């Protein structure tokens, strides 16, 4: 177990006109589960592969604990990888797959058997130890891949989208299993995903990446409550935060005739073109007289537990798509116009040009 430190680590693929990862600075604490999240092509996998030794580091350094691993081959880094497609060895039994690292380390067969059995017990794989991977379900394969990594007792787990080959229900189930297991084992873990729900639910902290650069490294709830810029605001949360163009004038934010309530910090800082962000669950439906933002309802989605109202708010010729989460049933219908408002503490104000957060 150890910390992981990236010091301006750069990866520039030969022949590319710019680096995939220009230079990442990131400290991961001992025992922490750090999630790297971002859209495809943002450099999150490349960053993980640099840590694992599968990609060259062109500049900068990477440390595991106090040890500089920048130029070590993968086999000497004391890490274990779990891949999206698991890459279980189809010609080996589950037990041999899980014991592979111990065999490489020349651990005695008895000791190997003991440690494999131990891990299989934790993962509920005991009865499958003699099977070949192809005789397992997707979820079981995923656990074997986890087991193969656990048995090594590495200093760091590197997980590259380990849930993306599972179906939706299995994914929900497995992500809680992995989070629990990681917390129990206390092994420092770097987890890569493109799915913000996984990032939110699993990470002790989450690093949001875009175009090779870190945008924000924070706890899931801080990312949700205080996104530092427009990208993070739009990326975290589903359905996505309503982001609406507005104009700032003497500490007032206007969307057409609707005056957005903003916090004092934002009121002081904002100027010219701003973007106002409100999460779907932060809207309140008010009556027309209360002067809310008018929204013409185009679709109402009833999920049973919640409802989402999709509509457009026609302001200054540019229609804004608005999503409102409603608790009750059958309260809003297609074609109606509803009026919504919110409270200052739920409004995120951003500078439209720089994307930077202006609210507190």
């Amino acid at each position, binding site marked *: 177990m150890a910390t992981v430190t990236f010091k301006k680590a750069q990866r520039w693929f030969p022949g590319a006109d710019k680096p995939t990862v220009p230079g990442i600075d990131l400290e991961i604490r001992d025992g922490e589960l750090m999630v790297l999240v971002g859209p495809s092509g943002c450099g999150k996998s490349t960053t993980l592969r640099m840590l694992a030794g599968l990609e060259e580091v062109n500049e900068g350094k990477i440390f595991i604990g106090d040890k500089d691993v920048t130029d070590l081959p993968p086999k000497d880094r004391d890490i274990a990888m779990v891949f999206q497609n698991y*890459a279980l060895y189809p010609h080996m039994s589950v037990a041999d797959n899980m014991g*592979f690292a111990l065999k490489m380390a020349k651990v005695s067969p008895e000791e190997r058997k003991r440690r494999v059995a131990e891990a299989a017990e934790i993962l509920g794989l005991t009865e499958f130890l003699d099977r070949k991977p192809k005789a397992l379900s997707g979820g079981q394969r995923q656990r074997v891949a986890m087991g193969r990594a656990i048995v090594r007792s590495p200093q760091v787990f590197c997980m590259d989208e380990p849930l993306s080959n599972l179906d939706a229900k299995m994914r929900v189930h497995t992500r809680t299993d992995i989070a629990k297991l990681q917390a129990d084992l206390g092994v420092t873990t770097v987890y890569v995903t493109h799915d913000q729900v996984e990032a939110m639910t699993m990470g002790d902290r989450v690093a949001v990446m875009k175009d090779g650069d870190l945008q924000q490294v924070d706890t899931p709830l801080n990312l949700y409550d205080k996104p530092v810029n427009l990208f993070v605001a739009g990326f975290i949360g589903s359905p996505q935060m309503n982001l609406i163009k507005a104009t700032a004038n003497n500490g007032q934010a206007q969307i057409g005739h609707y005056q957005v309530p903003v916090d004092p910090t934002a009121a002081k800082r904002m100027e010219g073109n701003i973007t106002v962000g409100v999460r779907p669950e932060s809207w309140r439906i008010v009556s027309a007289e209360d002067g809310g933002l008018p929204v013409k309802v185009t679709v109402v989605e009833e999920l049973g537990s919640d409802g989402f109202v999709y509509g457009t708010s026609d302001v200054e010729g540019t229609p804004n798509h608005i999503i409102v989460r409603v608790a009750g049933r059958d309260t809003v219908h297609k074609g109606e116009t509803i009026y919504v408002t919110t409270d200052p503490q739920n409004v995120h104000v951003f500078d439209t040009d720089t994307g930077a957060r202006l609210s507190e």
Partner: protein
Amino acid sequence: TLGRPPAVLVVPATIAAALLVLPLVALVLDTPWSTFLEQLGSEPVLEALRLTAVASGATVVACIVLGTPLAWLLARVDFRGRAILRAAVAVPLVLPPVVAGVALVTALGRNGLVGPLLRDGGITLPYTTGAVVIAHTFVSMPFYVLSVEGAMRSSGERFDVVAASLGATRWTTFRRVTLPLAMPGILAGSVLAWARSLGEFGATITFAGNYPGTTQTMPSLIYTTLQGDPALARTLSMILLLASVVILAALR
């Protein structure tokens, strides 16, 4: 359930099928089955059979021993000139066999590029069984290498990467992971190489000649026999046709 196939497609398809199937059917029908085994007992036939078995067996061994590492190098190692080497390896696939024979003569013949060197070392190749094996290996190895390289590429580097991250050296990874995973490609490649070797005619007759006992393999014997004893030629052809059918079955 998309509807009946139109005649404008069915008619030419039938002609094509007839053209491909008819000669095979004719060969089966016209083979003198009553004297089949008897004909196989003659000395030149036995010699040709023996030589074909030895040459094709040696070819497959050469392919496995030398071709597997080459396939691995092409599939897994990023070196300068890899694209060119991969293209060069594929050339014998489309090279006319006679031209392959001429190229082998030019390189290894008595007056060839390295022929004199070999002769100084006491090795004479042309018109020996060794020449037959080299000709067969030259034309068969590309099939083997491409099949194994394809298998190694399709199983993908991720298996190797996992092994490396679990502490395995490159050689251990090759033995314990790459090789077992490429086994279907190795088997298919061996069968393909064996098939190519079994039917080799052009390169062999050009480079090694057609001498009973040393370089006359089955195809050469069939070619030689057809004018004088067509019935025997058909019997011998039938054996190779059966081998082809077995090969095709093995490839599925």
